[in-house]
Structures are given as structure tokens and as C-alpha cells.
């Protein structure tokens, strides 16, 4: 890829070379004619050897002269081109710099100066409009994240509370109560999907503060305590192997959600009792659970891809995992080996490369 400044220069050099190539024979023919004419005019006769010698001299002199002029011309062209281009393209580079610094989180720091060149002013104006549209869309989306929760959670809360009041009614029989219970569980699920969608939007909007050093060992231990009631009930175990003491930079809540979702996913898709293994090594965390056959890797991390009637999850758990991983430029991978699903979380892409 060539730079804009060099782009015109290259063409000028090629053009000058072509001119030189064309000019040499013209010079040569013109000069030999002139010389021949002068010889005839003054009736000068020279031997063929002398003629050949002079011819070579002429070719040499013409070539040298042409090359000299070519060099001077080229130098002048380069100089002019440089001075002109510098001035001409300055507004372009300024604009480029501005766009590079642009940050959706902080949209006020962008300011296009007036350039007095119609094309660049037009470009800047179009860019300004484009960016403004983006900023507006972004703000709207952010607002949506806030409002949607209010707008949807409230009717959900109303419906849930009404069902709870209804279930207090003395006249209910078994069948009516089970209808209420079914409606309640569907509502709970809707509420959960809503919460998860909002979480996804918030991660996408980068609405989580960052930069906290988190010890993964402590985090895993906390999660184990949280999940232990489920394992105790099912007679299975969460087996944690810790081979290293890694720390990562990030938001603690997001990291808890990330690992929590992987473990939840493992529990959800294991026919219990079956042990779930979590292995922590330097820069990577693996969650493994027994399974019958390999899953579809391409669909795995997509929204609502895994939601089914048999396993009524929200279908968003792994999409959230993917989003968090992308947020921190980590990597998550899936593998199936010897009857186990493995979800491998690499905390740094660089480390993974050096490990291989």
C-alpha cells in the first residue's frame, strides 16, 4: 500500500522516464540530420570511420544531456510536489487524526477545523453528520437499556404480584393452583430473559467500569460456595483443580457472570449425577462436563441458539460469555473429547500463542 504523498510522485517519475526514452531518438535523429545538412552545405567529406566516431559522440552527448535535464526536471518536480502536497493534504491528515481519536463514550472531543478547500470542508461536514448520527444512535441504545428495563420489568412485576395475590385465595383447588404456578414460572423466565438481554446491551455499550485486579482462585472459591447447594442436592461434585495463581484485569461482576455462566451451562447440560471439572492453569480456565456428542460449534455462542423446550434456559448464557470475552479481547473455545464437553477460556491471546 502506498501513501497518498508518494502516489503522485511515482507517476511523475514514470512519466519523466517515458519522456526521456521518447526524447533520445528524436534528439538523435534531429541532430544527425542537422549535422549531415551542415556537412553537405560546406562540402565536407569525412571518412566512414570518422563518421562512425562522430555518430557515437553525438549519441553519448545527447544521452548525457537528456539525462541531465531529466535529473534536474525530476528534482524540481519532486520538490514542487512535496511542497504542494504537504499543504494540500494537511486538512486531510488533520481530519484523519480527529477520527482516530474519536471515542463514542466521549463524543465532545471531536472538532473539525475550517480548511478553505471546498472538497475537504464537504468531507468534514459529511463526517460530522455521520458521527452525529452514530452518537445519536448510541445514546438512543443506551437510553433503551435503561428504559426497556423499566418498561418491561414493571409490567412483569405487576403480573407476578397479581398471580401471587391470586394464589392466596382460599377457594383455589389443585388444578387452579397448578395453572397459576405454570403462569408464574413462564413469567419468571420472561423476567430472566429480559434481565439477560439488558446485561448483553450493557456489555456491548461498555457500561461496566474496568480495571480491577482479580485473583481467579478467590473468585472460583466464591463461586463454588454459591453453587454448592445445587451439587449437594444432585449427589454430584464440582471438582476444581488449581495449577496456577493467575490474576486478570477486569470487572469483577462481569468475570463472575462469565465463569458462573460457564458452570451453569455445564450443570444444565449434564445428566446429573455427573461431576463437573474446572481446571485453572496459567492464563486459561477449562470447564468440563460429561456429554454424549459434540455440539455445533458455529451455533454455540449465538443468541437463543441453544434455547429448547426440553431445557428451558434463556438461551443467552453463552452469548453473554462471548460478549464478555470479546470485551476484554480474550478467547473462548469449545472442544469435545472422550465423552466430555470442554469450554476453554483463554485470558490472553498472546499467552495462548506462546504456550503452543
Amino acid at each position, binding site marked *: 500500500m502506498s501513501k497518498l504523498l508518494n502516489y503522485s510522485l511515482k507517476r511523475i517519475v514514470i512519466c519523466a522516464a517515458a519522456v526521456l526514452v521518447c526524447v533520445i531518438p528524436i534528439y538523435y535523429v534531429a541532430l544527425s540530420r542537422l549535422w549531415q545538412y551542415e556537412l553537405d552545405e560546406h562540402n565536407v567529406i569525412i571518412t566512414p570511420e570518422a563518421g562512425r566516431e562522430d555518430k557515437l559522440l553525438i549519441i553519448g552527448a545527447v544521452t548525457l544531456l537528456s539525462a541531465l535535464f531529466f535529473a534536474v526536471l525530476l528534482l524540481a518536480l519532486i520538490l514542487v510536489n512535496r511542497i504542494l502536497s504537504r499543504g494540500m493534504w494537511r486538512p486531510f491528515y488533520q481530519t484523519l487524526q480527529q477520527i482516530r481519536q474519536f471515542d463514542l463514550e466521549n463524543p465532545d472531543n471531536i472538532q473539525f477545523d475550517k480548511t478553505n478547500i471546498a472538497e475537504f470542508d464537504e468531507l468534514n461536514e459529511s463526517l460530522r453528520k455521520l458521527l452525529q448520527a452514530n452518537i445519536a444512535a448510541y445514546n438512543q441504545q443506551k437510553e433503551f437499556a435503561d428504559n426497556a*428495563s423499566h418498561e418491561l420489568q414493571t409490567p412483569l412485576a*405487576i403480573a407476578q404480584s397479581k398471580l401471587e395475590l391470586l394464589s392466596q385465595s382460599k377457594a383455589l383447588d389443585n388444578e387452579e393452583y397448578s395453572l397459576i404456578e405454570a403462569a408464574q414460572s413462564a413469567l419468571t423466565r420472561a423476567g430472566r430473559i429480559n434481565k439477560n438481554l439488558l446485561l448483553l446491551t450493557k456489555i456491548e455499550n461498555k457500561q461496566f467500569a474496568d480495571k480491577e485486579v482479580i485473583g481467579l482462585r478467590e473468585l472460583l472459591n466464591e463461586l463454588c460456595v454459591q453453587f454448592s447447594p445445587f451439587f449437594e442436592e444432585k449427589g454430584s461434585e464440582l471438582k476444581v483443580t488449581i495449577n496456577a495463581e493467575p490474576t486478570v484485569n477486569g470487572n469483577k461482576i462481569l468475570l463472575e457472570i462469565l465463569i458462573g455462566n460457564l458452570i451453569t451451562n455445564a450443570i444444565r447440560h449434564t445428566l446429573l449425577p455427573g461431576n463437573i471439572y474446572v481446571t485453572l492453569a496459567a492464563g486459561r480456565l477449562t470447564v468440563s462436563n460429561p456429554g454424549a456428542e459434540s455440539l455445533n460449534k458455529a451455533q454455540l455462542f449465538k443468541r437463543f441458539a441453544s434455547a429448547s423446550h426440553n431445557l428451558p434456559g434463556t438461551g443467552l448464557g453463552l452469548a453473554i460469555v462471548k460478549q464478555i470475552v470479546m470485551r476484554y479481547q480474550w478467547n473462548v473455545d469449545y472442544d469435545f473429547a472422550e465423552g466430555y464437553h470442554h469450554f476453554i477460556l483463554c485470558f490472553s491471546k498472546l499467552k495462548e500463542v506462546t504456550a503452543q
Partner: protein
Amino acid sequence: MKILIIEDEIELAKSMGTYLSDESYLCEYAANYAEALERIDLFEYDCILLDLMLPGGDGFQILEELKRQKKNDGVIIISAKNSMDDKINGLRIGADDYLAKPFHLPELAARVYSIIRRKSFGSTNVIEQNEIRVDVLGKAVTVEGKQMVLTKKEFDLLMYFIVNKNRVISKAALAEHLSGDVAALFDSYDFVYSHIKNLKRKLNDAGVGHYLKTMYGSGYKWEI
């Protein structure tokens, strides 16, 4: 005991009021910012249930006004925004608790109860129901003078039932009360059943009457 419900969704406010209204609670309502401020100026409440987004103003401003007037009312924020910032902000300004929508009414009752008890009874925080005596602060249960050994989860369950006495509580509400957000990740509430089973056995062994009843297989009721 007076409770003020500041909530612009009338249907939700009515549900909360209906559930909370019993012999010891009197509920009053405010549907917007101005109304809420007026009521706070005029009356004292044992507990205020405060929605954050209100017509005419922000719930946080009401919270600040309460603190400015140096009122001692207990405040539970009830908000649709389940964001950590709002939680921290609300608790920092001086709210006592935070409940995200949608919530279970028994959970609301339990939170209100614990705030009112903390505010009004100070260190002597003992509940008596027939032969059961619960020391809320010491987390100890005695039956006719004899101590009952309960795990933390069983104690939590018992408290939840006592607070919501004579009401049907669904397994979902119990599960969420026992393990918070983690319960929301699962669809099976079997672990609730086993805690209930243990609690029932211990109550029976201690000679407590048959108050804890199973309703239609999917809910429970503490009948006194």
C-alpha cells in the same frame, strides 16, 4: 406500623398494599414526586417503599430530602434498574435495602419486616408465635425453653415463613430467597424441597405443632 408506598404504577402499588396490609401494617400510597414529598413532610412512616423513576422527579431526590430532614424512616428502594451503580448510590444516600423488579411479594414482606424490626425493637428483637420463640439478632430458635439447632438456610426459611404466616409461598419465591441470583439460573427447585424436609423434621422432633403445610405440591404455607 405505617408503610408508605411510593410507586407510580397503581396496579403494582395496590398488589404490594394488599399483600402487606394485615393487622399490624397500614399502607398509604403516593403516585408521584410531589405527593410523595407532601406525605413525607406531614407524616412519619416505619417503612417507605420507594420507586426510583417517578413522574415529576427522581426517587434519589426523595431519599436526599428524607436525610436532609433527618427522618428516621426505613427506606427500601424498589427499582426496575437492577444496576450496581443504582444500588450503591441508593445505599450510600441512606436507603436501608434494595429490591429489583420483578420481585416476589413474600420477599418484599420479609424485607419490610426486617427493617421495621431493626428500627423499632433495637437489640431486643424476639418474635414469639405460639410455642416458638425466635431471637432474630442471635439467630436462635427455642421451643418451650429448649434450643433448636438449625442451619443458616433452615433459619432463613423459618423466618420467611413466620413473616409470611398464613400465606401460600411458591417454590420459586423460596428458591430465590434462599440463594438469590444463583437460583434464577436453574429451573429445578428440588433443593428447596430438601431444606423444607429437614426443617419439617426438626420442627417435628422439637415438638412444634404441624404449622408448615404443603399446598398442592408446589407451594408451602405456615398456618398459625
